[in-house]
């Protein structure tokens, strides 16, 4: 009986403390809801609406009917037409499209006879899932054929770009760069600053001539070095053990990583101004990390996600960083070609910096 009184006392105390830690309390409620929505909507193994451009060299009724038939599968979403296969390749390299369809001028005859593939599907096979989708598309029944035999033949020839063997490491290692940097950069900065507040160091520091900017810069710069070291480790080991290539320029890769590191550090700073304990700083980091892993395109193809999840993903720095690293490492794209993603990271850095500076005060109240 007395034992239950004691257990009850501890239990009541624990519940009261939990109720007063508002952040933990909010996480208890929002974590399951967020995870359920993210996993429920984002995880979609049957990929649909892949962004696709088309070259229609034939321009005939048949070619239009073929395009129509492809669009009706809902596997692709045709976002535009270009004149040459070279332009398709360029769009693939920039990451604008996941798939290109090239229809030759003699497509009518090819379809009718069914002796040769009627058209070509060019797919960004860095993510092996997409290669599977492209192959599935080529198995589409040929309703244009004249003979039964021709009907059995594949309409499309699949050309797999960037990762023709379909090795998943090629896709995952660049993605891991994003995951690791998000985790360590955001958490380290947030914790490093909160630690000073928690241990009382800040009260001494803010009475010295150190300015806000000096303090933040001095605290954050070491972690820039840490981040670059992590990038080098991942690229080195990825290449050595998993044969993951760096096809684009190393300079661009490090520049993009530097931008991402800076954006993450500014987010870490911002978090540090919003929380008051190291534990809360870590909770807040996971609150950012989880959607980053699920929605950035690290785990699931971006195009396969529902629109609302895509919008959410656009606000995450990791989404833009993954576009940059995969572009540079696998598709030999230059930073200039990937400018929109680089600019998104820059914007994130700016917003984080401004908000953190506004919130960080050299005072206690």
């Amino acid at each position, binding site marked *: 009986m007395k034992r239950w009184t004691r257990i009850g006392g501890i239990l009541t105390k624990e519940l009261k403390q939990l109720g007063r830690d508002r952040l933990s309390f909010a996480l208890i409620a929002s974590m399951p809801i967020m995870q359920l929505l993210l996993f429920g909507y984002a995880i979609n193994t049957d990929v649909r609406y892949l962004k696709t451009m088309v070259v229609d060299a034939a321009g005939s009724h048949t070619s239009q009917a073929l395009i129509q038939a492809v669009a009706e599968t809902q596997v692709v979403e045709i976002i535009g037409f270009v004149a040459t296969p070279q332009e398709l390749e360029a769009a693939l390299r920039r990451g604008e499209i996941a798939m290109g369809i090239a229809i030759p001028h003699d497509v009518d005859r090819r379809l009718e006879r069914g002796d040769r593939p009627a058209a070509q599907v060019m797919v960004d096979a860095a993510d092996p899932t997409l290669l599977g989708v492209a192959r599935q598309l080529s198995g589409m029944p040929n309703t244009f054929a004249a003979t039964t035999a021709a009907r059995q033949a594949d309409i499309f020839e699949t050309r797999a770009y960037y990762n023709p063997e379909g090795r998943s490491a090629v896709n995952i290692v660049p993605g891991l760069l994003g995951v690791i940097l998000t985790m360590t950069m955001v958490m380290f900065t947030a914790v490093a600053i909160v630690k000073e507040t928690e241990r*009382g160091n800040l*009260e001494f520091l803010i009475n010295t001539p150190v300015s806000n900017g000096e303090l933040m810069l001095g605290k954050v710069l070491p972690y820039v070095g840490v981040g670059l070291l992590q990038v080098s480790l991942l690229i080195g080991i990825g290449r050595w053990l998993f044969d993951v290539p760096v096809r684009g320029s190393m300079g661009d890769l490090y520049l993009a990583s530097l931008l991402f590191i800076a954006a993450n550090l500014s987010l870490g700073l911002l978090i540090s101004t919003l929380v008051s304990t190291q534990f809360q700083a870590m909770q807040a980091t996971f609150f950012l990390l989880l959607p980053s892993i699920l929605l950035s395109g690290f785990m699931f193809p971006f195009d396969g996600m529902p629109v609302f999840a895509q919008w959410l993903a656009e606000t995450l720095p990791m989404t833009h960083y993954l576009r940059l690293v995969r572009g540079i490492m696998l598709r030999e794209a230059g930073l200039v070609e990937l400018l929109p993603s680089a600019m998104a990271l820059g914007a994130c850095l700016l917003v984080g910096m401004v908000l953190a500076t506004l919130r960080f005060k050299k005072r206690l109240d």
Partner: protein
Amino acid sequence: MADEVATAPVIRARGLSKQFATTLAVDELDLDIPTGRITGFLGPNGSGKSTTIRMLCGLLLPTSGDVEVLGYRVPVDAAAIKPMIGYMTQKFSLYTDLTVAENLQFVARVYALVRSRERIGAVMERYWLGDLANQRVGTLSGGQRQRVALAAAVIHEPRLLLLDEPTSAVDPSSRRDFWESLFDLAAAGTTILVSTHYMDEAERCHRLAILDRGRKVADGTPNALANDLPCQVVDVLADDPESTRARLAADNRVLSVTQLGQRLRVLVRDDVANAAAALQQFLSDTGATTASTRPSLEDVFVAATELREQLRTP
């Protein structure tokens, strides 16, 4: 007293107030802290000592009132006074995972000191830290940490040193050493403002301001405060202190009774003629003996805080 205020005060505050959500922590405080002296803030917990010190160095924004520190207006020009003030926080605020020498090197760089090596060497010697130089601060005793904190607070030779309950985690002998260091600093011209709730510490200050619930209820030298005590102090030696205490407390001439083992320290109204004799007569059947005694700082403190209302309406 006139010579103390001859030069412009180092700290001058008028009508300084701080309102937190529901409590008025500091209420219309006026302060004039003279140069080169040790001024004590004496007050119970929650009397506004820390809040006042934090407002003086620009850590907290006053709700209202004007503050001038070393000729600069605070908090507007708080940045200008930072290099000239030293601040020792109530909670130890250096890095426990760094060594003594590393902490001091860090502080010296934060203040961008020239010839920092010599400065570090000088404070390490002055505060007997030489043997501890390579020890991590987290492994030091309370008294040793205090010396490191003081060394860090004065390494840039501040003109004003603010100490917020500096000796709360320190044993009596370390505390004595600590105060000797403070007197050395004051003799060298440093103005020191120290908050405390220890009477023996307050006794050592050149001047005292007693704070109670955010208001300054008395100020002056410890001597003057004792001399001006608006009541009499009687020392009672009783055979049965518990019952004697109850009897005294019920008497309307008695303001307060404090038990110290067998003895009772009794504050008696000023309008009672010859208080010791009066109490002797009052307690004649108990065999207690009474003697008039000189007021201590604790009596001053009790009179200024707990008895303030009573003393005002005789």
